[in-house]
């Protein structure tokens, strides 16, 4: 599904270069449920953004669903995101002015699906997350956990090849976090490939595989039970580089 090798990502500002990813290599197989952990600033979001074609990278190669994405232009990347990837964000990112139905509709409209098919997909996706009865409601009328379920419905409606989630439970209390996690497990059981970034070792343990990032590299992979208990890492993220 996802095949990254020796990916580098450097953020440059006026004064500093930040090596967010250093020769990151990893792969995710079809139908896998992978949790990505690591200390703050270790490059988890950067990895996810590159995986989801939200950001570009400098060196290395990335093959997604059999396609080398390095050569895609901006429009092609948009289309690829639209068709292949379902995003789940930490702060849900629902559009506040739109009701649940229209929110789930957003990616489907960009795909220019016929109205009847969009309607069927939206209904099905909202049913999957148990919120079909509230589709005329606005996001603000829902709890955080419900909002995240709508966001998951939005990601599912496009029938993506892969779900990418950046701390999907980060803004939720533990009861709601577990609901969302249950839902993700259900979706995975139905065959979806999921890559989830999380800080929570308990949730990470529920994935099939844990990838621990540190300082922009894969520090540890654990296929058996989940995240290993690693000692906290010293802050070692940003290199001050005086530019000429």
């Amino acid at each position, binding site marked *: 599904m996802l095949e990254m090798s020796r990916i580098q990502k450097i953020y440059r500002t006026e004064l500093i270069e930040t090596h967010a990813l250093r020769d990151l290599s990893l792969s995710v197989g079809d139908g896998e449920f992978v949790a990505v952990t690591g200390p703050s600033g270790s490059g988890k*979001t950067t990895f996810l953004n590159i995986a989801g074609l939200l950001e570009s990278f400098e060196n290395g190669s990335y093959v997604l669903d059999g396609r080398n994405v390095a050569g895609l232009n901006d*429009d092609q990347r*948009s289309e690829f*995101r639209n068709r292949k990837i379902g*995003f789940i964000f930490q702060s849900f990112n629902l559009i506040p002015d739109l009701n649940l139905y229209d929110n789930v509709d957003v990616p489907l409209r960009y795909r220019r699906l016929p109205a009847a098919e969009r309607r069927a997909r939206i209904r099905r996706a909202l049913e999957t997350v148990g919120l079909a009865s509230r589709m005329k409601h606005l996001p603000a009328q829902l709890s955080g956990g419900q909002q995240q379920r709508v966001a998951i419905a939005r990601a599912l409606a496009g029938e993506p090849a892969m779900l990418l989630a950046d701390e999907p439970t980060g803004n939720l209390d533990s009861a709601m976090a577990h609901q969302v996690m249950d839902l993700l497990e259900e979706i995975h059981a139905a065959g979806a490939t999921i890559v989830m970034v999380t800080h929570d070792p308990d949730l990470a343990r529920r994935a099939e595989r844990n990838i621990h990032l540190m300082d922009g590299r894969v520090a540890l992979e654990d296929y058996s039970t989940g995240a290993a208990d690693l000692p906290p890492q010293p802050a070692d993220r940003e290199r001050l580089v005086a530019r000429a």
Partner: protein
Amino acid sequence: MGFGPMMSSLMRNKTGAILVALQIAVTLAIVINSLFIIMQRVEKMNRDSGIDVPNVIITDVRGFGDDFNVVDSISNDIELIKSIPGVIAATVSNHAPLTGSGSGTGLRTVADETVVPVGTARYRWSEEGLDALGVELARGRNFYPEEVQYILPTSNSAAPASILVTQALADELFPDEDALGKTVYWGSLEPSTIVGIIDHMHGSWVNWSKLGNVVVQPGKPAYTNNRYIIRVQPGMRDEVMPLIEQRLGESNRRRVVKDVRALEDIAARSYRRDRGMAIVLTVVISFLIGLTGLVIVGLSSFHVTQRTKQIGTRRALGARRIDIVRQFMLENWLITTAGAALGVILTVAVAYWLEVSFELPRLDWRYLPGGIVVLWVLSSIAVYEPARRAASVPPAVATRSV
């Protein structure tokens, strides 16, 4: 984003949209009505006066002293003026057209004081008068030289046998008949015969609705103050004007040259209120259009900033840059069109008010679609830059912003 979701999204963020729509409505009403008034003023200023305005010079002279011989002075002056190269014709006259000052009278077709006379401007000039103004005689004849006498302040002003009238005056006097050869009666009920019809000529008062009514009597007014009408060959005016001033000044010390002016300048002065109104309204509508453009830029920039995260999310979900641009353009188009719809009502209301209170002509409805198209174009231009900025919001904003 689709039409429906966009409408409901707009309805949930009414305030800004309503303000902009109102601004657009008011702009449409003011711009269209102002433009209509401007066009009327421009049309008025560009009316054909029938006179060769660019090539006519008006000269005012004044004699002084008890023994000033006005008749000699005028005949010498006219001779001298006509000897200047480039001069085509010259006459002394009581007044000059388009100046805002003149004399008027009333004519009747019957010798009956109870009949309401037809108002008209009245001139006196010599057989060269028509040529001195470049006015065309449509039918009949010009004055014979022997019909043209000096008219001294002391002479009794009996009605002349022959007069010229403009076609406009002729039509008003004799709506169903040919005026040529007909007799008309002055205020004193003295008769004169129409011997020639001037095709078209404006009289003295540009704001008078019967500006085209002119009657001409033969004569050379010979007073202390005299006015000469001089026509030159095309392009010679500015050369001839100083020569007139100089030669007349040198030729006779008993008579001063008060003023040598181009008829064009005099006419422009007569139309200065119209021009002023057109300029003020043009400034007002330019300002208003600029302001409306800025308001649209402001609101859409605000929307872009406010929705940065939403834009990033949309990009992450598969929107291309063009989709984002389109979203902002379409939303702006909806606001503009709603404003324009309201603006049409407002425009008609203002037009009706102007029509009733200021007796302006009825608004030409064709200005409305024109105005709406202008606003559409304006608002599309105004929203373009903010929309482009929206499209350049990076998709990573979706995960990076809180």
